[in-house]
Each structure stands twice: as C-alpha cells, then as structure tokens.
C-alpha cells in the first residue's frame, strides 16, 4: 500500500507554504519530499525520481525555479513540473505555458500564481498524473 503512494517533491523557501501543502497532499494520499531551496532540491533529485515536482520560482536565485525545471526535464522529461510563483501578484509580470514561444523556454507543465488554492494544485496534479486518483 505504502509503495503505491505517488511521491511529490515540493521545492520552496517558504517553510509555511511547504508545511501546509505537505499536510494537505498527505491527507490526499500522496507522499511528500520537501526541499527548502534549490540546493536541497538538487540533493533530493539525486536520491530518487519523484512522480511530480512542485517548485517555487524565486528562491536563492531569482530564476531558480526556471533553472531547476530545465535540469529536471533534461534529466527526465517525463517528470511533470508545476511552477508556483508570487511574481504576478507582486509585480504584475505574467508567465504562462500557453503559447509555443513560452513553452520553448519555460520548461514547466503548469504555472500557478501564488496565493494558490489547494484545489487548484490538486486539479493540476490529477491532470498531470492521470492514474493518481
């Protein structure tokens, strides 16, 4: 039973964001590996393949999330990645993965603007991991 649990890697420098998402995802039946920044994320990725990654955009580096997405996809293009960012609510800048041009450089399968509701994340997870019900 435990073995069947899908593992989600959450990368964020906001400890409370991770904590809350982790509890919600665990209650929804997922296993969660938290990583509190880019460095820890690299280590976690070496430890094993997550079924899905949820990463913040701006951490130690302003574009840390973009760089991580690239690395993850280069390593294994089949791992779905969700990028979460407060940049839109803070600056009005908008990123998306709708046009081909955006998809060519944003290597994420979905981008969610913070503050993000749990149902939104869960919907994206279920879309990207169809067999995870």
């Amino acid at each position, binding site marked *: 039973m435990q073995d069947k649990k899908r593992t989600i890697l959450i990368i964020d420098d906001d400890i409370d964001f991770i*904590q*809350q998402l982790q*509890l*919600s995802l665990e*209650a929804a039946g997922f296993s969660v590996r938290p990583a509190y920044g880019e460095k820890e994320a690299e280590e976690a990725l070496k430890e094993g393949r997550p079924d899905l990654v949820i990463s913040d955009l701006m951490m*130690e580096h302003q574009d840390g999330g973009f760089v991580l997405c690239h690395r993850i996809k280069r390593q294994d293009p089949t791992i779905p990645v969700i990028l979460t960012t407060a940049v839109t609510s803070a600056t009005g800048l908008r990123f998306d993965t709708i046009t081909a041009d955006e998809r060519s450089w944003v290597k994420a399968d979905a981008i969610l603007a913070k503050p993000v509701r749990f149902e939104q994340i869960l919907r994206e997870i279920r879309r990207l991991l169809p067999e995870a019900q």
Partner: protein
Amino acid sequence: MTDTLRVLIVDDEPGMRLAAERTLRQLEVEFPDLEMKLGFDIRMAASGEEGLEVVDSFSPQLLLLDHKLPGLSGLEVLDRLASRKVDLLTVMITAYASLETAIRATKLGAFDFLAKPFTPEELRMTVRKASHHYLLQRRADELAREKRQIRFQFLSVLAHELKAPLAAIEGYLFLLKDLPAGMEPAAYAKVVDRSLLRIDGMRKLIFDLLDLTRIESGQKKRELVELDLADIARSCLETVQPAAAARQITMVFEPAGPLLMTADRGEIEIILNNLLSNAVKYNRDQGRVTLGLTREDGRVWIRVRDTGIGMSPEEVGRLFGEFVRIKNEKTRNILGSGLGLSIVRRLARLYGGDVAVESVSGEGSTFSVWMEPACESGPPAGAEPVV
C-alpha cells in the same frame, strides 16, 4: 556641463525686447553651490495674448513680463498663469512700480521686479537671482520626490512583511478546519508551533517599527543622563539569558569596571538587546556569546561576538538595509523583522558613531558599535523619517 534655461520676454516695445535679448543671449552664469553653468534660450512676445501662447508651446522656466501691455495687462497674464499651474518664475518689468501693483503681482506669484529703464547689468543680476532661485526650488522638489519614493518603498515592503505572517497563520487555521481526517499529533503540534512563531515574528516587527518611528520622529524625548553601561549590559544579558540557556549557549561578560557615558538608557538597551538577541538567535547550540565594553581613544565600544553561522562577504554587504534578512538553509527557522540592525545603526549614529561587522561564514560574527561619549546632538541632518 552647461544647462540651458528657457526664458520668455513679454514686452510691447521692440527696442526693449531686442536689448534684453542681446544681453541675455551672451549671458552665462555659474552657480558653484549647484555645480552648474547656465546659458539661456530666449523667446519673445509682443503682447500678453501672444505670451500665453508661447508659454504653452515653449514652456519657459523664467518669464520677464512687462506690466503695461496693450491688450491683457501683465497682472492679467499672471492671473491666468496662476490658474494653469505652470512651473515658471516671473519677474515683472514695471516703468513705475506703484506699491499697489507690486503687492498684487506678488500675490499672483511674481518673484521679483525690474524697474524700467534698467541697465544691462541690472537685467543680468535679476536674471541671475531668479535662475538661482528657480534651480534651487527644482532641486528641492527632486529631493522631496526621492524621499517620497523611499517612503513608498519602505511602506510597500512593510505591507508585505505584515501580510506574509497573516497569510501563513490563515493557511494553518484553514488546515485545522478543513483536513477531513484530522491531523496526527506531531503534525498538529507543528502547525500550532509555526503559527505561534509567525505571530511572535509579527509582534517583533511591530515593536521594532515603533522603535524606529520613535527614533525618526524625535518625538520620544531623549533623556541624556550619565549611565553605567556595564550596569545596563547586565540587565540586558538577563533578558536574553532564557533563550540562550534553552540552547546551552554560554554568555560571557567580563567588564573591567563601570563604564560611564552620557546617554539615553532606552536607546542603549535597544542597541544591546538587538545585538545580544541576534548573537543568540544566529548561534549554534552549545555556542558562546561574548560581550565586551571598552573605552578606546575616547570612544565607547560595544562588541558582541558569537560562534554562530556567520555570513559571506556578499551577505555582510546587504546586512544593514531595512527588511534585509539573510535567507539560507541555516536561517530558515529563525524569525526576525529585518529592522533590528537598521535600528542599531540609526541609534549609533545619534551618538556620532556607527556599527560594523566582521564575519566568517560557519565560524561566527563580531558586531561592533562605537559612540562618542560627548555627542549630545539631536537627530543628525541625515536622519530622514522613513514612516
């Protein structure tokens, strides 16, 4: 560098216009206090009506305006300019300056008067004075705008810093409310602990903010009396002792004896409490905090050394800014307002001193505050209010 000031001359006598133009075209004035050299770009108009049109198209910064004009009078022109809120300085040219005209013109915003007939030298002096006033005014406006900008930035960061803990606590409360199966005891404890920590952080931010506004506004009356810093240090050490003991951090303070200085007790306490609580917060378990108080070369020095996580040179460079918190995996669980060191710096400067830090990443940091014991000035000119 030579700047150009746009000048409009409104006079119905062609001879006057020509003479004035000739004088000013050649003129170059220097303002050493503004580090500026000034030349003039000149337009002319023969009537008030034409003058108003040129004001619109040319946006002059200086207006030489004859009072006695065929159509609109000089005063009427001034009146219309006042309602348009244009950024220009007016010098009235009057053949006979009646007191009544002068008063009305001044009320309408005229800066100066030039009596007809005038010599080229009188014109040069008047234009020089008016230009100087105009440029000073503009410089002051720019400074005020910059200050507003800084204040706005401070307030928007502050708003963010106050919103963040609220959002975190709200998130935890929703979790407690919504998780259908309830929570395991360990998870429950974590949720409560993190919420309390964020509330603590918010309270600290509000207290620090009050300290900062009190320093800035100068509203709090400073009570400068002779104090024994060693005495104050002992009571501040007692304040942080519980937090240190909880993590087996040793506090070391060996004063050579009393250290007397004329200062405000509250301000010295804020400095010591900030430095000591930082030294505990950013220390390792079983670490050590050493407090030193000395008088060297007539200055009073407070030195607080810790055996904590230290900082990289890049981190040290950013340290004293407002709301700067060094974010890395070692500081993740340490909460602070990001205002403490900025407050320490402002206070040290009130005593003609400052604060500095030496730090080695992974080994620890030493914060040094120095103060001039004789410095009894109020807030220095550089201390601008931030909120």
